[in-house]
């Protein structure tokens, strides 16, 4: 078995009164592409945010390549949900991608031409080179998502976390993003993706983490993504095949 680069032990997190995550335990192999799947409110985004200390954890530990988050930070890339920022902010696509390099540029220093070129190259990789000077408010949802991905690419991280990068994007963008994810994997990067579309899980991910407040199942997609396991994760309230809109929102106490 390959070495594990992410180890999560007994992680718990809460929003106000509700515990969202309880005793989450798993470890992720280097070079794997994992889909995090579960019903609405299962804590998928919260899991990622808690692992990256964007949300406080109640208990538990997370380490990356044997290091705590603080030291591993520079090896980690994060693509937040598209809706998490105000796209009306006055800036262009190239500038947003350049933000991915801010850590490398160093604080209080300005980006040089070399950094801009690097950012442009990442945009090109996402098929967005014609939009480099475009105001981000004038980009479509799919294009905004590509910009976010390009920003993560320039970080040149070893581990990537992506929160629903495929939500609400068109088929072309979905293909472009999946091509990049597979390329990242081929280059030995470890990628974890919050994913919503059950139909494409088998096609896109080699590993799957079924989550509903805690880890229901985790492992190779071929072994883990079975009808029974998925039904268990979704509380048995889900019609199988083609009816992905039948998710049940859990409000259970």
């Amino acid at each position, binding site marked *: 078995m390959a070495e594990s680069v992410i180890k999560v032990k007994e992680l718990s997190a809460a929003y106000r009164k509700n515990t969202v995550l309880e005793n989450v335990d798993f470890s992720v192999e280097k070079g794997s592409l994992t889909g995090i799947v579960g019903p609405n409110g299962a804590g998928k985004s919260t899991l990622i945010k808690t692992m990256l200390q964007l949300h406080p954890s109640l208990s538990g530990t997370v380490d990356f390549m044997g290091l705590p988050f603080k030291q591993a930070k520079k090896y980690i890339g994060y693509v*937040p949900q598209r809706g*998490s920022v105000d796209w009306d*902010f*006055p*800036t*262009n696509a190239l500038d947003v991608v350049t933000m991915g390099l*801010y850590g490398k540029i160093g604080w209080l220093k300005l980006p040089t031409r070399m950094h801009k070129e690097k950012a442009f190259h990442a945009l090109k990789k996402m098929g967005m080179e014609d939009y480099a000077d475009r105001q981000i408010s004038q980009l479509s949802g799919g294009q905004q998502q590509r910009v976010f991905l390009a920003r993560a690419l320039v970080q040149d991280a070893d581990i990537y976390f992506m929160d629903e990068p495929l939500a609400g994007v068109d088929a072309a963008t979905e293909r472009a993003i999946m091509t990049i994810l597979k390329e990242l994997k081929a280059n030995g990067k470890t990628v974890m993706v919050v994913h919503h579309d059950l139909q494409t899980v088998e096609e896109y991910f080699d590993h799957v983490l079924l989550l509903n407040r805690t880890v229901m199942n985790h492992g190779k997609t071929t072994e883990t993504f079975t009808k029974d396991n998925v039904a268990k994760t979704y509380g048995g309230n889900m019609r199988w095949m083609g009816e992905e809109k039948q998710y049940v929102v859990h409000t259970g106490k």
Partner: protein
Amino acid sequence: MWSILASSTTQWVLASTMILGIAAGMVGCLAYWKKQSLMSDALAHAALPGVIIAFLLLQEKNLLILIIGAAISALMGAFLIQLIQSTTRITEDTAMGMILSIFFGAGLMLLTLVNRTAGGNQSGLDNFIFGQAAAMVKSDVITMLMLAVIVIIVLFLGFKEWKIYLFDPQFAKGIGLSIRGMNFLYTGVLVTTIVIGIQAVGVILIAALLIIPSVSARYWTQSFKWMLIISACIGGLSGAIGTYISALGSGWPTGPFIVLVAGVFFTISLIFGKEKGIVSNYIQFKIQRKQLVNKQISLDHKG
């Protein structure tokens, strides 16, 4: 009356309200993208009791001391707003409304008390409500200039950091920027700008100098850098022109004139602004329609 303007004191005062306007215009852009424009108003009102208490304690009108009092009081207001919204079900805007009026009410009450005491009437503390730039002495001007310059330098040096902090704080945290540190700095520059402005512009209207230049600048540009620059220019011009006009009459308050000048800039921006100004929107609509009509005509010819 023109002789007032020729005096070197007036020139100093003009310079200080101009640089105040520049600082306020820039800090206003931060507040705009933090979606906290109204917060600056709450903090300004909350500064009043601090000014009076500082005066009561020391019995002298030293601007630096009064500014420190104002800052403490404003920060207390900010803390209470934060506390109310995080521990109760009261939302932020309601909390701001409460703190703003309660602190301001307390300030007015204290002011009445001070004015009854001997010498209180001559203290000129009334000026802190509507602003009276002409009441500033040279040491006041120097205090104000220095603090405003510090604010501008902080914004200038951390331009890239401010940008990512405002656009995507979560990502910024991920790449190692301390959001707590940035929040601290942000509150610091915001409160500093407010308190140095309260003598010249007054607690009631200083927020306008933070809000109006930045929204006006938004009509002219799609770049954060230019938004900061344009907002700084509008703020600086409003400060200088407003002070100039108020110096024409004796005892005219400065704040209202500064805000009115800023209001004129806003109106111009709203109508003629390059980005989504009323006129440019209309022209663009016309052009698009013309293009559509032309396209249809050429299609008709082909068909």
